[in-house]
């Protein structure tokens, strides 16, 4: 039975598939040469980082409390959000209180997860994405398809069209021109902003510092003119101490983009001091749960070690063919196949097909900087779906079949009526949910149903 993800992959335009494949392969190659060129103990480091994260998760209650205590001492205002709605309202509450209507944002998966931008717009806040890729995604009203490279699915011609459409110059496909135009356009947005919204890559419980990394310098730019800084941070981002940050930063840059270190690595432990003319006077951190504590209680808790490097996406043969959008959730690829159904909670069934979209080749585990046993977790989720009898999206409803199979008269009728199917052209959509999708990749053979029963009947007659 094809799952929605298979159908998406099958229908992906060849150009997009090629763009995604190139991007993913390049990411994979850069990671490999940098990480293995710089270290001869890569597996030890991956295991170590995984163990530190697992330890933190197993004691998350203690570390979260410690982090919060330190942050408050540092003058950071702390908020908690149990779900997306909470998170959006918390952000809006802070902005309202400060009369802030112009916001610049630095790329953050947590804000994508809670669909923050649309909510802010609805509430009269102009919110501009500043990461080049996210800026283009926002112009296109699209969604990111990769954790690190949000527009991995777009080529330069599509971007040139977008810029032209939005008045950012004539059609021009030169990446340098595109980048310069975005630079010029976004500068005034930064300078006029009231608040800057970011995520965080890590939080040190020991010092209460949050760490934000960008290559473009956009988070730094958001946090220079802005008077208010709001960071939306998943509770799993905590590490025990500052010392741990060195290990994680070394692994993150190399795993994500094949850089020894991401270019701008900012350590923030509170609002600016008076001696510094630029930077937020108020710092807010919103700790986001949104299914994380529930995931922590499951036997798939290892997925919370994830540091969002995207390496598993780059290496995954399914991701490479299907692209991130096939996963229908902000987190695509192997990490998303595990995380999305778990974070979905009661809506687990909506994403129950994702854990099946893997050949369990194990490559994702091998590249993961925190050694998450992704294939094992995928199997556990498949079992969960099986145990709980969760129908996958796209699965054909089985009740009509069950009814027919247990009622001989209905069955006979269906067999006789089945021949009608031969008269329906392939292009006509059948009113059975899921069947249309299934048929997109298949043509039905001619109906020859009922013959077996006939044959059996006559055969029995002969024998008696």
């Amino acid at each position, binding site marked *: 039975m094809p799952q929605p993800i298979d159908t998406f992959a099958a229908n992906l335009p060849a150009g997009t598939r090629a763009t995604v494949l*190139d*991007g993913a392969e*390049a990411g994979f190659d850069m990671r490999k040469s940098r990480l293995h*060129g*710089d270290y001869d*103990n890569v597996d030890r480091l991956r295991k170590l980082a995984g*163990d530190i994260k697992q*330890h933190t998760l*197993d*004691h*998350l*209650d203690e570390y*979260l*409390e410690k982090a*919060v205590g330190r942050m408050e001492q*540092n*003058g950071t205002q702390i908020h*908690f*959000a149990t779900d997306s709605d909470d998170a959006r309202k918390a952000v809006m509450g802070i902005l309202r209180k400060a009369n802030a209507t112009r916001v610049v944002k630095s790329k953050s998966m947590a804000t994508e997860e809670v669909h923050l931008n649309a909510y802010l717009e609805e509430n009269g806040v102009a919110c501009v994405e500043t990461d*080049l*890729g996210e800026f283009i995604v926002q112009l296109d009203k699209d969604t990111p398809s990769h954790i690190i*490279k*949000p527009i991995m699915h777009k080529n330069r011609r599509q971007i040139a069209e977008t810029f032209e459409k939005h008045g950012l110059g004539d059609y021009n496909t030169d*990446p340098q021109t*595109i*980048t310069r135009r*975005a*630079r010029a356009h976004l*500068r005034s947005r930064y*300078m006029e902003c009231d608040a800057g919204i970011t995520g965080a890559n890590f939080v040190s419980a020991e*010092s209460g*510092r949050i760490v934000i990394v960008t*290559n*473009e*310098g*956009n988070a730094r*730019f958001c946090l*220079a003119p802005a008077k208010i800084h709001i960071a939306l941070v998943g*509770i799993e981002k905590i590490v025990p101490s500052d*010392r741990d940050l*060195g290990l994680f930063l*070394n692994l993150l840059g190399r795993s994500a*983009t094949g850089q*020894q*270190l991401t*270019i*701008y690595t*900012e*350590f923030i432990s509170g609002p*600016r001091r008076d*001696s*510094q*003319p630029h*930077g937020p006077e108020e710092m807010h951190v919103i*700790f986001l*749960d949104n299914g994380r*504590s*529930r995931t*922590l*209680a499951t036997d798939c808790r290892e997925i919370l070690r994830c540091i969002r490097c995207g390496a598993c996406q780059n290496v995954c043969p399914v991701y490479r063919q299907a692209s991130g959008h096939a996963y229908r959730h902000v987190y695509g690829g192997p990490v998303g196949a595990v995380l999305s159904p778990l974070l979905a909670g009661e809506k687990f069934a909506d994403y129950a097909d994702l854990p099946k979209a893997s050949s369990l080749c194990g490559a994702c585990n091998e590249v993961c900087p925190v050694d998450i046993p992704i294939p094992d977790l995928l199997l556990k989720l498949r079992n969960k779906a099986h145990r709980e009898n969760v129908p996958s999206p796209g699965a054909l409803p089985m009740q009509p079949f069950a009814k027919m199979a247990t009622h001989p008269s209905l069955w006979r009728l269906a067999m006789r009526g089945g021949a009608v199917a031969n008269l329906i052209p392939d292009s006509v959509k059948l009113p059975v949910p899921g069947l249309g999708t299934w048929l997109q990749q298949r043509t039905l053979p001619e109906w020859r149903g009922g013959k077996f029963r006939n044959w059996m009947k006559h055969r029995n007659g002969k024998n008696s």
Partner: protein
Amino acid sequence: MSTVLDNVRSALAARKEKAPYPAWEDAEVVSTPKLAQGSLVDCFSANMKAVSGLVMHSVAEVEQFLAQGHHLHGYCAPELAEVIGTKLGAGITFSTDFDEACYDDYTFGITRATAAIAESGTIVLNDRDTSCRLGALTPWVHIAVVEAATIHRTLGAAIAALGDDPNTIWVTGPSKTADVEGILIQGVHGPGIQIALIV
């Protein structure tokens, strides 16, 4: 206490086995090939060049570079005006007061670095030592003045020295993106040219 914390507590309540904190040595996380160049200044220089940064050793070198690139007006941190700013000839002018209304007029920014990291070719800017964040960010050329004695050997050492400044930023080369088809472009939002002037 918050619901989130309560939820975390109850998620962990039934757990019997909890992973201990693993033992590890700082040396395990050091990339030794990155420190093979000899002195700290040499390692820093080699690694900074590897990320497309420029390393200079005299004001004259900076002056020549700025003049050649027609970067003729910029910002210079007040505490560096006498030792560096006023020594720049060749028609180069500077202001020690960053005027936000004219942020695009500054083609270079000269600010003080708190430290540097040899292992990664990184410049460390603490809020306390950076006269203003924008002066090191909006100009096309950023010149960070690094005292040789402040160079840390490793990332770990730089982290241990973070101290109590509420804001520290590590800068490892010029601002970059590879968002458009993976093609590397320098100078996205921050400087397109990152210079370390070692004194």
